[in-house]
């Protein structure tokens, strides 16, 4: 079970990293594409990673 939890934490961490990197790329730019990239790619990836992390916590059975 711990291995499953750790695998899920790894995936949620990676999703968050990719989302945050996309956000970092868009932050210096004042352009509609940067806004759309941030709102439609960066934010959903970060949110998905966070939700997956929380799901992995609540679905984990402690021995």
């Amino acid at each position, binding site marked *: 079970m711990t291995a499953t939890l750790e695998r899920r934490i790894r*995936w*949620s961490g990676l999703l*968050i990293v990719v989302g945050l990197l996309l*956000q970092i790329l868009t932050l210096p730019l*004042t352009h509609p594409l940067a806004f759309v990239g941030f*709102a439609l790619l960066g934010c959903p990836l970060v949110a998905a990673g966070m939700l997956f992390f929380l799901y992995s916590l609540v679905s984990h059975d402690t021995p």
Partner: protein
Amino acid sequence: MNNTPLLLILFAAIAAALALLTALRPELTRVRGGKILAFMALCILPTLAMWAGVNEHLERSTSTKFCLSCHVMADFGKSLYVDDKSYIPAVHFQNHFVPTDHACFTCHTDYTLFGDYKAKWRGVHHVLVEYLGTIPKPEEIKLYTAYNNRECLHCHAGMRKYEEASSHHKNPEMLAKAATNQLSCISGGCHDTVHDVANLKDATFWTPKGNGK
């Protein structure tokens, strides 16, 4: 670039680094300290980074530079410099009746509870058209709905110059009708020259002398 994005980038980079550490070393979560780190790195910090980023992007998307960054909007930007007092946007922009760095948004947001968000949603649609659709000619671009006096009165209501102008008392009900949007400031025939991008080639333009934003 001002300092705000730099701070946000730094904060997001720290959040990303901690999330990466947790992703590469998930076994850290077997101890109490690691659990706290994982919760901070995978929940609290990304939430804060996202919230700060949303605020920054929303604020930036209200800037004149942002609106005019699409090629099709160039003529609308140019119309702000027309040297003719009958051009309503030009007279507002050139005299700083609206903040010049947020000129488009000041007049083209709805001053309602969700007006800003409606404007943003429409903006996302515009981006999709810009890159995936058929871009209309500038003169073919129209408002979604007739311009509501509410947007004018957001600033003009209660203004002495507005209330005492003789042209606003041509008939006794004029101001009351304008206040309830029964008589349009623009399509009512009084202030009907707006951007008029179709006729820009015949217009003369004002050039700001120094200190212009």
